[in-house]
């Protein structure tokens, strides 16, 4: 299941999930950066947890729920996306699918992370443009937006 749709692909079991998502399922938002789990550009969720899809064999993903950047909201209105837009975080933007996926996973587990928790959760995602200061601010902002939205829901 990728973004709540079931897919069947006929590929080598060792093929990393990344290439299946990009080239067989056709979702290009997840990026190739390093191929060795060092940069986080390929981050997706496996049952809600962030994984590096460049080094994750597709065979291990069968039967699990995969979420990619395209699956976190239908209308670009996930609080993390809203905060990313508000603080104009991306520059080239290439790493930000991965950054956003790591941030979404962090906030799910820890809705009000401090700077240290943000650093720990986000240190596996490299941004060569150097947007880290904005990433940190945007995660705090997304946390606020989530609190407001939760309040509205009641």
């Amino acid at each position, binding site marked *: 299941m990728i973004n709540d749709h079931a897919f069947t692909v006929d*590929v*080598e079991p060792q*093929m*990393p999930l990344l*290439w299946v998502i*990009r*080239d*067989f399922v*056709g*979702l*290009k*938002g*997840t*990026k*190739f*950066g*390093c*191929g*060795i789990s*060092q*940069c986080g*550009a390929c981050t997706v969720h496996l049952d809600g947890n962030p994984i590096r899809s460049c080094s994750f064999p597709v065979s291990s993903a069968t039967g699990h729920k995969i979420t*990619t*950047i*395209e699956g976190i909201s239908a209308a*670009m209105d996930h609080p993390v*996306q809203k905060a*990313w*837009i508000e603080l*104009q*975080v*991306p*520059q*080239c*933007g*290439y*790493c*930000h*699918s991965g950054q*956003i996926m790591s941030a979404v996973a962090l906030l799910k587990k820890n809705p009000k992370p401090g700077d240290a928790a*943000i*650093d*720990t959760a*986000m*240190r*596996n*995602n*490299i*941004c*060569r*443009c*150097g*947007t*880290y*200061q*904005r*990433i*940190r601010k945007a995660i705090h902002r997304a946390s606020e937006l989530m609190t407001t939205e939760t309040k509205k829901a009641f």
Partner: protein
Amino acid sequence: MQTTENINRRNFLKITGLSGTAFILGLYASGNDSVASVVNMSGLEESVALTPYIIIEKSGQITIMNPRPEMGQGTYQSLPGIIAEELEVSLDQVTIKQTSGEKIFGRQSAGGSSSVRTNYTLLRKTGASAREMLIRSASETWKIPMDECYAENGKVFHRPTGKNIPYASLAEAASKLEAPKEPVLKDPKDFKIIGKSTPRPDILLKVAGKAVFGIDVEVAGMVYASVERCPVFGSKLVSYDDSETKKIKGVQQVVKAERIVFGKNHYEGIAVIADNYWAALQGRKALKVEWDHQGFDKFNSNQYEQSLRELAKSDGFVVHNSGDFDKAFAESTATLEAFYESPMVSHSTMEPMNCVAHWQAGDMIEIWASSQGPSLIKDELSRSLNVPQDNIKVNIMFNGGGFGRRLQSDFASEAALISKAAGKPVKVIWTREDDTQLGPFRPMTFSAMKGALTADGKAIAFQHKVISPSLSVNRTANDDKSKPDNLMVEGINDQKYEIPNMRNHYVFADFHIPVSAWRSVTSSTLAFAHECFIDEMAVKAKKDPLVFRLEMLNKESDTKKVLTKLREVSGWDKPLPKGRGRGVAQYEFFAGLCAHVVEVSRQANGSIKVDKVFAVIDLGTVVNPDNTKAQVEGGIVMGLVAAIKDGIRFENGKSIQTNFHNNRMLRIDEMPQIEVHIIADGGNTIKGVGEPGLPPLAPALCNAIFAATGKRIRRLPVDLAKA
């Protein structure tokens, strides 16, 4: 957009192929001879050409062309924003399109922090001309005076009655009018976009995973390729065995490949072509290749650097000579000398090099790529593949980082040749290892510094001798070393310090490894030597480093203004607690001017933490303040990586660094706080934004380390143990 090349001498013209009829407004292109010779418009200056940046369709659709690729620096907003400002439309009303190297737009490449500063007035005039013609068209339609009309929000309004007509209904009539000779530009106080932190439209795509980068392109019938190349530069292919490769499911073909850098360095490779990228990669791993390294596997950085230190003994070229350096140096009782070393580094854009190429019948080539310049790709393919420019169609996608790497189009000519061999469109993706090891790299520069002070501690003599490989020689065909390479002494003659006796030198060093511009080019390394040595002189003079600098800036200058502002915003005169230190540096070069104060603290384990960076950038006019801050933040981070991380070192002929585990980048937990201040005093002076934040970082950092520890760092990356 091919039709735009057949443009006539009208201000607007009808073209088909868009939805219905569209009108394209032409405007001044900056002195490009080839364009000027094609079109010579009446009503405009002799050398002015017609360039269609604005397309208004009958449906109401307005398209603005962006002539500089977007690589994170913000041209997707800033350039169309300048046109939109004068045209009186908001950016959410328009579609932005990237140009594709059409001659009519002149040279299209993004580099040198030049996109805004070289296009600002031209693009304003483009928008203003269109606005004026639309207003005139409305006034003629209504048969009322023009001065009773104004444009706003994509419509022309009649001031007294409030009636209005959308641009779409006016465009055809407007197209028949003469373009104004001197369009009236808006008063800056009325700006709605320029000078405001307007949100960047590309960010909406980027947070949704919908921005299409080169690596995301798919075309019908496309196959994938991965290329085995030798990381030992200069090696020759002896033989290869692809029998195991061909057993891998999905592998279609194995062909010889050729990477051509700067049109003159040819590197052989073996391309594995497959149904999918993973199969191509597995096939590549299964190749058995024999290379003849021709002795180049003996090359290593340690030896090479020693040769640069030897070269430092020679004079090389004198690149600046004012006063009498030798006399002033000899007569001074307070002289100092120091030797500074900056390493090679990689660009390491997050999107590795890649390209989709389709070599079609009749030698027609179509390219889809992340590139800093469609014109650059056309030049490179035409030169290296001997194909006429008109046969080449280029589609520029969002760049996942550029930093100067994507000024080279080696990846495009290589992909084109593989497509030719395959007979179908091919997507070539470099692995991170390819991207890290194969360059071109920022060259190392070494600097021999000399300085002398007067008895009362004023700088009386200064010398900066640069010893390095040459970017210009490296990339040109003739290897001309009869003249100094001005790129390699960038900025060293041009700082505003009033030092009466200064003589600077450049010494060529031969180098077989391809090197190229890297964000802020040679200023990225020379500023380190230059501004750290100024600090050493301040220490010798027993003066505060910032005061010492200001004492050499008696005439009014932007540098003086920037340092004065920096002193104030950084709280420079307020002492820091023990164990902490701050350092200052500035650097002015072709791209602009920025200065930093860096604050560091000593940690219990003896390491240094970078706490905070205060930056002041001088612009004259600012187009997007928030984006300017983002660019300075980015420059600081990139400067920090180059100052404290691994860099590129060669052993046994090849780069030791292969991927992000040993070519480490800054991560979020190492991120200092950054506070950026912009000086924008207005006027038409406009300086660059993308690069100036980088050069002052390393010297400000090392000056701060000295302040905190007493250790003078003269070699990067910083190694406290060896200092």
